[in-house]
């Protein structure tokens, strides 16, 4: 169990060093992405102005307040509450995110499936679990909403966050075929029979 601090963007070598059970804190930059963002990017062929190569994306759609654009704030937003949504719905976008956009890390809750695990192994990626529903805390790790793209999709736009000490996050899926979710699911399936027998419902 190693703790890693990654200043984003990261290299493939850095990502391949991550193993399930390790913890990670991210620094500098994080992109926010969600259902509609990816449906538009990959099903409707829209492209982003951001260079996502080597970066981390988080499955989110934040609560924001409109402010004047000024200085380093090119988004016109400040964060009210930034949290994490369930990843499973966006399973099919993992490989295109990595292949076309060069993303290396996906942050979410609830885990992704076999297809994503294969993409992480083939292309050098990892899934980091954040505690879902702990958004007030997560918001304290966000310094600014620096920029935004595809903003007609608000609140499901593509956001560029400036972050500080974003974590600790748990490496829940790695580039070596490891998935904590797969282990937990297998264990639940194994225990099912005994649980049903005790209920008189086997």
């Amino acid at each position, binding site marked *: 169990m190693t703790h890693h601090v990654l200043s984003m963007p990261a290299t493939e070598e850095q990502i391949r060093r991550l193993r399930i059970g390790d913890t990670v804190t991210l620094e500098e930059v994080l992109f926010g992405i969600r259902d509609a963002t990816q449906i538009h990017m990959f099903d409707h062929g829209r492209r982003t102005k951001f260079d996502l190569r080597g970066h981390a994306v988080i499955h989110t759609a934040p609560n924001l307040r409109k402010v004047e654009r000024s200085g380093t704030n090119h988004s016109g937003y400040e964060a009210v509450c930034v949290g994490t949504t369930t990843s499973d719905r966006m399973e099919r976008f993992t490989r295109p995110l990595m292949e076309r956009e060069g993303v290396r890390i996906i942050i979410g809750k609830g885990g992704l499936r076999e297809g994503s695990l294969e993409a992480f192994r083939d292309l050098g990626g990892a899934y980091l679990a954040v505690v879902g*529903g702990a958004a007030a805390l997560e918001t304290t790790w966000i310094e600014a909403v620096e920029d935004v793209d595809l903003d007609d999709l*608000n*609140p499901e736009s593509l956001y560029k966050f400036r972050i500080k000490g974003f974590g600790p996050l748990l490496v829940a899926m790695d580039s070596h075929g490891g998935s*904590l979710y797969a282990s*937990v699911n297998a264990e639940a399936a194994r225990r099912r029979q005994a649980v049903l027998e005790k209920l008189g419902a086997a």
Partner: protein
Amino acid sequence: MTLMTKPGVEPLRIEPEAVEEAAKLLYIRACKVLPDDIKEGFARLDGAETDATAKTILATMIENIGVAERMDNLLCQDTGIPIFNVLIGRNVQVDGWALKEAIARGTARATREHPLRSSVVHPITRKNEHTSCGERVPVINIDFTDAERELRLEMIPKGSGSENGSFLQMLVPADGVAAVKRFVVDRVIQAGGKVCPPTIVGVGIGGTSDLCMHLAKVAATRPLGTRCADAEGAKLEAELTEAVNSLGIGPQGLGGDSTAFAVHVETAATHITMNPVAVNIQCHSARRASATFTPDGIRIGF
């Protein structure tokens, strides 16, 4: 023709403006402050949890509750689908249409004025009006109680991660209660970490298909520590709570004992040929807020 006015009892009159203010206040408050029973539920799970990762995750959730209160921020980014339960007591006078309009106005004002993320879109075009409102949303459930001159307004921002963990099966009598139990266990396994455990697993048993699903929602949003009024339902609650917490799913589906705060069951009579069961899940951010209108004023609670 007889006039429908009872002499000698001054009814409690509820003005739409008061309902609008309450709806706005409740939506924001529900998003920020967890009910005491849920906080106690966290303490109970944390005390009994044996898995180290699970303990860390529960500690983060508990820390988040404190951060939200101290910073006056939202517990979770998901402002949910707004649900309002209106419980109308006896000798209460209210313009029903105005009440519905007032709830929607309060919801939209909370969204724009706080501001909150509008999580509500048209189901086909996916267009977001940025008001947390739309056709038939907020969801408004109206029921009547025997409380004298009292109207209770309950607000529940229902998060989508757990709402997507909703299941209905029209079992048949020959399947028996064993199939009902299997259905609950299997749907909890299927939902895994996607529904943000530890959860309240709401189970509806009986009724029609729509009533069964509604019962599951009532069960999932009931305060912890309350029991099913039906003795058989209450027995199932205890058995199923132990069962789902023996699966090892744990907080966030990352392993551990704390899969659910509780399994809650609600029952309704059903047809001789039917045996419906429904599951609706509430995430650990099990948010509620309420306003109770009486002749003495408005009381805010959970």
